[in-house]
């Protein structure tokens, strides 16, 4: 019962490990919001598990005093899936990055999401490989000059949210590392979602890719470059909240100025509950600078959860066949006796 629990604070979730991220790394902000979140969930400390792969973000589990696994590159969703298969009662968070989750671990990420296994996945997207000191990542833009692309990247980047939605994600959201209030609300939503919750966080690597997301994080600039998604509300943005997103006659999205015959009612209204993922996908394709980039919950729908279904199958088998009997198992099929 949660009422018997001692009241926990963010401090209770701080481990005794020295933080080893670069000064002013965006990871600090995400960690802070995460530690604020956990005490609000009504679970004892031991019921949390944080699993990561390899990369700067994947140091995360060391800094949270829960059960934690700093595993191998790209495999965190698979390791976490194994954990959930045997311990559906634990709340398992997966911490990954754009290289870890989308490059070496793309396959595992896609399949965890497809299964809708009850994992909360935070993908720190900084569009760069930080731990290996500055190579381009699967989310780096074309033309990006890095240590491994001195003449500019010729790799077309992918959108983490498009991947998630294409993998049939039941919960998809985006936030920004320094937008603490927003990030906090998104983490809260993810924690309460049944099934895989996938969150992309724009995270600033101030050493190898500084300012990659200034357009989305700097006060005075971001207002024109991001649009907050709210269920049932029109997509409005801009410092003066005078611009909106409309679906035009060609069924394409366009930016329009409010006024001069265009009212809020003409705009696209967000529906995170839409059974069909096309709207979420359309929103995920909105890229800076052509469009403001949406932040918030793109999609939140109910669908069968893998670890719950697995448990149900085990329970049903137990009810149908009774607890496994070794003698019956050994003696299945034709038997004969030698005197």
């Amino acid at each position: 019962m949660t009422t018997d629990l001692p009241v926990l604070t963010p401090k209770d979730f701080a481990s005794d490990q020295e933080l080893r991220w670069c000064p002013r790394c965006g990871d600090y902000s995400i960690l802070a919001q995460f530690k604020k979140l956990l005490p609000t969930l009504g679970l004892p400390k031991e019921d949390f598990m944080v699993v990561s792969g390899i990369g700067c973000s994947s140091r995360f589990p060391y800094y949270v005093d829960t059960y934690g696994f700093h595993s191998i590159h790209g495999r965190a969703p698979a390791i976490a899936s194994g954990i959930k298969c045997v311990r559906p009662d634990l709340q398992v968070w997966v911490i990954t990055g754009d290289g870890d989750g989308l490059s070496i671990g793309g396959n595992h990420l896609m399949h965890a999401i497809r299964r809708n296994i009850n994992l909360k996945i935070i993908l720190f997207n900084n569009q760069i490989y930080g731990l290996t000191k500055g190579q381009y990542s699967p989310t780096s833009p074309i033309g990006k000059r890095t240590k491994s692309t001195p003449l500019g990247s010729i790799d077309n980047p992918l959108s983490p949210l498009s991947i998630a939605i294409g993998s049939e994600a039941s919960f998809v959201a985006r936030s920004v590392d320094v937008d603490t209030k927003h990030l906090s609300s998104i983490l809260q939503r993810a924690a309460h979602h049944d099934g895989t919750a996938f969150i992309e966080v724009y995270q600033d690597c101030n050493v190898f890719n500084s300012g990659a997301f200034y357009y989305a994080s700097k006060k005075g600039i971001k207002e024109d470059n991001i649009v907050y998604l709210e269920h049932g509300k029109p997509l409005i943005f801009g410092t003066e909240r005078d611009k909106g997103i409309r679906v035009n006659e060609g069924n394409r999205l366009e930016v329009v100025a409010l006024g001069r015959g265009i009212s809020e009612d003409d705009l696209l209204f967000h529906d995170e509950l839409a059974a069909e993922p096309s709207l979420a996908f359309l929103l995920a394709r909105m890229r800076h600078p052509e469009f403001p980039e949406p932040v918030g919950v793109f999609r939140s729908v109910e669908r069968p959860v893998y670890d719950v279904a697995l448990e149900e199958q085990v329970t049903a088998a137990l009810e149908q066949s009774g607890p496994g009997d070794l003698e019956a198992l050994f003696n299945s099929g034709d038997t004969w006796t030698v005197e």
Partner: protein
Amino acid sequence: MSTDVAPSNDKRTEERDTIVIRFCGDSGDGMQLAGSQMTNVSAVFGNDVSTLPDFPAEIRAPAGSLAGVSGFQLHFSSNDIYTPGDEVDTLVAMNPAALKTNIADLKRGGTLIVNSDSFDKGDLRKAGYDSSPLDDEQLLAPYDVHKVEMNRLSRDAVDGLGLSPREADRCKNFFALGLVYWLYDRDPTPTHEWVNQKFAKKPEIAEANLRALQGGHNFGLSTESFRVHYRVPPAKLAPGKYRKITGNEAVAVGLATAAKLAGRPLFYAGYPITPASDILHELSRLKHFGVRTFQAEDEIAAMAAAVGAAFAGEFSTTATSGPGICLKGEAMGLGVMTELPMVIVDVQRGGPSTGLPTKTEQSDLMLAMFGRNGESPLPIVAAATPGDCFWMAQEAMRIAVEFMTPVILLTDGYIANGAEPWRIPEIEELVPIVAVHPTEANSPEGYQPYLRDDRLVRPWARAGTPGLMHRVGGLEKSDGSGNVDYDPHNHEHMSQVRAQKVANVAEAIPEQDVFGAPEGDVLVLSWGGTYGAVRQAVKTLVEDGRSVGHAHLKYLNPFPRNLAELLDGFQTVLVPELNLGQLVQLIRAQFLIDARQYNKIQGKPFRVSELVEAIESHL
């Protein structure tokens, strides 16, 4: 029992000790089914049996082609037997391609039964024959040949059931089986039951197959072509209750047993791969044992999920084969580094790369030993026979849990698919594994995940245990606390501790036994699925009064603690392996002896005769 055939006027019954029969035909001809039914009725009758299914990797290679030939060899006997047999007494060939690829294994004077309806121009061309081998008197002269029009006879047998000619033709394996049942005086009852159960929803197909079976039987009984039929009395196996079991079944049952006896659920993560998939199939049916199976997106994920479940605190396992074991290497290394218990089953097959997916080989031993980055030791055990897989799967789990380490269990395609009678154990014979999980901190500083006991084993806290929150990972860590630690001396210490812990397993496994001479001229040192052939070869020589011993290793890392002493007692140590020499290298390196090797790498098990010859060359 089969009494209905006895008083036929011109049919004799002769008794035989042992028979090797091989069914071969196109992949679509149902030869695996015919072979396994013959195995079943022979086992139920009380013969000792040993089988060698041999099928192509392609599900449907072009019909009638040489590549598409599928075979099933069965050795059934009134004696204790160890192998599916070197030479074939009776060959059933359903088409020219099958005849061409198998006739060399039929012994002189052996019985050849061919489906003569399958020797038209097209069939002959596909098998690369210019003219029909059935007209080649020189080719067929050494054998007792029976040309049987199986297509026509099967159609006759099912006449009136409304089957299409194509459907009727598909019954011809049952016709062949019926003929063989008559030839070897088998009671078809288990097959009747199987057919009725299998085709319960298609009674007309069940009826057709049973009629074809009876048709084959009647054909043997009535045709003049067959003058003799044979009886192979039951074997004198150790008293007890038996069933037929394959290695893959036995691995699955063994793993489920280990968990059940420990009162724990079992987690199995796997990715479909030949010839390991049947382990996944078997375990997925055992949900009522608390078995949770997870078909992962790839081999890497299966291994990673197994590591995750072990960290959560449950009995965890995976199985694979061929290239799958390479893919698992990375996460296996994580299992070694985090010192978590799990069993990795490697059903070895021909390599490298995709290699020979459906053929057997023993070429993953070095990979099991050394196939991970860094110094990454783990215990390795190997099963000797299909039934032994049951015991070694439990041993692997016991060692994993007792020593907090991943353990590799090596089997191979031959014992995985091969079947033998398995004496069903009494529950009391089985020793439950005791898994201990701390519930309280083990030091004044709190829970220290790498604080070891006197065998260097670390504690296994289950996730969710209050007060024992801790982090593990792939980075090098301080002994005791488990905190990340790059100190040079710490790394050396930890490397040695991990190696020593695995070496300590030697104290927890049985000493190596030896069959035949306990010391003398030649010790034949083998491992894995070659047990049967090597044991039979050594037995033959021992009965001839030769000074030969046989030690069959089931524990490959660490070796049994008395192995050095045992090797010392022989002038020559000969290591036969189905690879180019892997155990022999380990033996040479560890014991500094001039161990000799005998190798075969054809995707097929050893023949007893070639082993006898190889051993004799060292006497």
